[in-house]
């Protein structure tokens, strides 16, 4: 299929709404599982959107902005995965790989804004010093508008204007390359998990990582809910144990301090 102008504009609108949400992190509709589904709806293939959403969400499971690094943009990755899969009849797993360059480009645009929006700070400082609430509020809309429009324009160019060259590129790809992209889509979650581990993994938590890994390898269940429940059990046990230990420490401290310290 090809993307019509109306569909292209709808995708731009979707990118603006979810892109704004990506900037503010309010509703989390910027996650691939939502963006892909809605893109599928626009293109008239909801099922493809949902399937691509599941796969892309997994690929981005650990790629969060929390570790201090801005990951490839989920909005553009979500949109382009569905667009590429729908217009070129490739599998969603292959499309994830092909959509990554778009997601990375958007990531660099955002990184550029993170640096360049520092230029607004002296204006904010000035309005704050003057106590000018109205101007301060108004100035906050400028970055929001710049970001929202950037998402819309970039998504429109990627999804609508670039579809012919994209089609030519995908068609000229040899089978081993398409298959390679498909494999990469399946391995990609590893990057996110490694990034999560970099932030979270301390030696004392390694046993829990291993526990979750072994359970999931041994039981065949369609999702990680049982693993999460077992993790929850251990978290609860540790929570109460730590509370108990800290209460004990308090008591010991009280005894050490003697009677004259009573009633602080």
């Amino acid at each position: 299929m090809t993307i019509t102008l109306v569909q292209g504009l709808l995708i731009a609108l979707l990118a603006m709404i979810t892109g704004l949400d990506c900037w503010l992190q309010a509703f989390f509709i910027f996650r691939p599982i939502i963006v892909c589904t809605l893109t599928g709806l626009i293109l008239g293939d909801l099922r493809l959107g949902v399937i691509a959403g599941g796969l892309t969400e997994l690929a981005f499971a650990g790629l969060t902005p929390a570790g201090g690094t801005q990951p490839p943009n989920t909005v553009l990755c979500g949109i382009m995965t569905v667009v590429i899969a729908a217009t070129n009849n490739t599998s969603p797993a292959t499309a994830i790989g092909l959509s990554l360059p778009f997601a990375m480009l958007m990531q660099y645009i955002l990184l550029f804004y993170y640096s360049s929006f520092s230029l607004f700070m002296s204006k904010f400082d000035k309005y704050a010093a003057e106590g000018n609430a109205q101007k301060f509020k108004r100035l906050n809309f400028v970055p929001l508008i710049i970001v929202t429009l950037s998402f819309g324009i970039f998504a429109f160019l990627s999804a609508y204007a670039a579809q012919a060259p994209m089609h030519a590129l995908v068609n000229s790809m040899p089978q081993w390359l398409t298959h390679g992209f498909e494999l990469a889509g399946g391995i990609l979650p590893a990057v996110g998990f490694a990034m999560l581990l970099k932030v979270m993994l301390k030696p004392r938590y390694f046993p829990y990582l291993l526990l979750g890994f072994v359970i999931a390898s041994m039981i065949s269940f369609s999702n990680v809910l049982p693993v999460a429940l077992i993790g929850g059990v251990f978290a609860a046990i540790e929570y109460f144990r730590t509370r108990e230990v800290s209460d004990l420490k308090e008591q010991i401290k009280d005894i050490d301090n003697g009677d004259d310290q009573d009633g602080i």
Partner: protein
Amino acid sequence: MASEASEVGKNKPSKRKSIFTNHEISMLGIRSNLVQASFSYERMHAPGWTWAQLPYWEKIYKDDPKGLKRVMTDNMEFINSSPPLYPILMGLLLTMEEDHVEPTTIKGLKNALFGPMAGIGDAIFWFTIMPIVGGISASIAKNGNALGPVLFFAVYLFLFWSRIPLAHLGYNLGTKAIDVIQENSKVISHAASILGLTVIGGLIASYVKMSLTLKIGAGNSVISLQKQLLDKIFPNILPFAFVFLLYWLLKKKVNPIWLIVVTFVLAILMSFIGWM
């Protein structure tokens, strides 16, 4: 939500008359979504943080332009915490601002709290809730079931609305919240880390797909490297090893973008030589 908030209020005899209505405090929770509006590396959340609370300070300092200038300038200082937990911090500091507590005290408290709160918030929201909710709804969606995205949206809509009771919590607890946060921050992030890491272990096994198609030997003694060797040692040993290779690279301060490049190069190479 409202009952939860009033219950919190009940624990403490109301010591003063608030100039803010219940609705206004709820709106503070909603407005806390603005913190990232003018995000930049220089001050991070400061301008959005100030913007979100500005109407409230305008009310407090209605007849005191100097006070408004002071509070706006104070809050334009660097702040970076976990967005979903900002309502608590805003509510808490608003009580103090309303009571005209010494500005340096408020500022000191803000600076003392936003760091630890960032730690708890990241541990809970990004490292625990996101992998669990994302993992479960994605595994439903993967088979074409639209309940996956619906479930995901429902959970995050709930978290969005939870900002309202959190704002009331911070506002009503007042300075008591400080003890609660400091006492519990370590215990909670410890428990959240355990849950999060167990889930990540499960996600590695379930969602990283690496499997060799390579066969070695000749004639009747052909064996599949994956099925007859690696799976006999331990299933999913390749994904686990690969995650730790990437982890090791990250520890060596390699940029995450390179990890994506490494992944693609490896996948395409494996496809080209026909090993995967």
